[in-house]
């Protein structure tokens, strides 16, 4: 839980600036959206459910990436869950309850814009819960995701990373452009002051919750085009691989066997 003495970590090792021009982006977007759409119509999807988690720095482009994914899907097949402060009903329940209630049934996608990782990110950094509470959350989250995977769940986790300078540019642009102004609040500027604390929390989170079956995908997001294509491509390939696994060896067969009981 201490930063490495040479300051190197999984986020700093990421080459955040990735080239991708707009024309190439549009070509790639059409290609991967088509593939995702075809995958989402596959009859084998009836024994799978897809859960996607989007986390990232403020202004990293989570919303935009989600919209490029849902743009490929039938509105009847997915559900978006924006995660903000818990409601009164949710506060009266154990922490993970408010995510369990949104777990999709088979054949459906659910996109969490921020997620159960709030406990080891914002709640840890802002001191909303005690150290013992966020410390035990890592293994609780691993158990929770393991439970999702047991019944044919496909779990994808994206961290959209931008540099501090890029965030500053985007904040300023949001303040200037009228139709983006709703996206920026004083809270965003306040969170920015805690950049280093968040960075440490993110690195701990990746170290402790990137499991073999539900790994984190770190997305270099200084270039929005690149970030969107990487998210779309990773998701599509994961769904396609899971479809191939249905009825065959490994988790797919297990899911089917358990489902039959």
């Amino acid at each position: 839980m201490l930063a490495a003495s040479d300051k190197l970590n999984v986020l700093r090792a990421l080459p955040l600036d990735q080239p991708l021009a707009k024309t190439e982006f549009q070509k790639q977007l059409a290609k991967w959206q088509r593939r995702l759409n075809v995958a989402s119509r596959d009859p084998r999807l009836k024994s799978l459910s897809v859960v996607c988690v989007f986390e990232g720095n403020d202004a990293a482009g989570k919303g935009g990436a989600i919209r490029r994914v849902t743009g490929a899907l039938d509105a009847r097949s997915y559900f978006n869950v924006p995660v903000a402060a818990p409601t009164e009903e949710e506060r009266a329940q154990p922490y993970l309850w408010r995510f369990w209630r949104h777990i999709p049934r088979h054949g459906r996608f659910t996109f969490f814009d921020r997620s159960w990782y709030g406990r080891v990110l914002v709640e840890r950094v802002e001191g909303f819960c005690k150290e013992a509470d966020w410390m035990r959350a890592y293994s609780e989250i691993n158990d929770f995701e393991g439970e999702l995977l047991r019944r044919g769940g496909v779990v994808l986790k994206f961290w959209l990373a931008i540099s501090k300078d890029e965030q500053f540019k985007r904040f300023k642009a949001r303040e200037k452009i009228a139709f983006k102004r709703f996206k920026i609040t004083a809270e965003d500027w306040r969170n920015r002051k805690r950049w280093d604390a968040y960075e440490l929390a993110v690195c701990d989170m990746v170290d402790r919750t990137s499991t073999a079956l539900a790994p984190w995908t770190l997305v270099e997001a200084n270039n929005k085009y690149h970030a969107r294509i990487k998210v779309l491509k990773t998701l599509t390939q994961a769904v396609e691989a899971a479809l191939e696994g249905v009825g065959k060896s490994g988790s797919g067969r297990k899911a089917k066997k358990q489902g039959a009981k």
Partner: protein
Amino acid sequence: MFESANLDHRVDKATYRREEAKLREALLNAQYDLKENGRFPVLILIAGVEGAGKGETINLLNEWMDPRHIYTHAFFEPSDEERERPPQWRFWRSLPPKGKIGVFFGAWHTMPIIQRVNGEIGEAEFAHAIGEIVRLEKMLCDEGVLLLKYWFHLSRPQQKKRLRSLEKDPETRWRVTEREWEYFKVYKKFVKVCEPFLRKTSTGEAPWSWCRGATGVIARSASAGTCSRRCASGLTKSRSRGCPTRPRPCSRRATS
């Protein structure tokens, strides 16, 4: 493991009547304290062998307490909606909120036990299920849930006698189906599976309580007694953690 539950406990009617009044008052007090305080939920798990009075006890708890603040859930075969989600989903959607009491009849322990008895899962998968249950229950307790687990037990001859007498009475005949006799046939295997299960899932934060359910009376008073006592101690604990104190009406009896 079931030695004390197998003893031939007896309570005469007069003692029962005297005890019942006290227990009912204590239980109701504890329930109102819990509701007023609203600091944590109470979750009661009811499990055990057939014919030991599990259902009767739940009905009695509902009768004795204020039914507006107690929710009972029986988990039978999963519905289509539940089958398409992880096994834990149906328990999560039924959890009681803070200040309320939930009663789970056949919770997360049922499936692994039955599957192990039927030989559908091996020792390794059973051990895995036990680990999952222990971690789930620990998490619930860490999140502030007061978890009370009751195991209703009968010895094999007791169970046989009980099922026979239920069958004889036209008013209780509906309670004994072929399924009960099928379970009776595998009694020895059932107990052999349950014994290590109970031992391993009886943890510091969520221990099992055993009751002998032959007459029902013991079971009821035992469960009501522990329940009210532990509710009260849970409240005291949460209060000492620094939540605002408020006077409680005659709850001393609950802790004695």
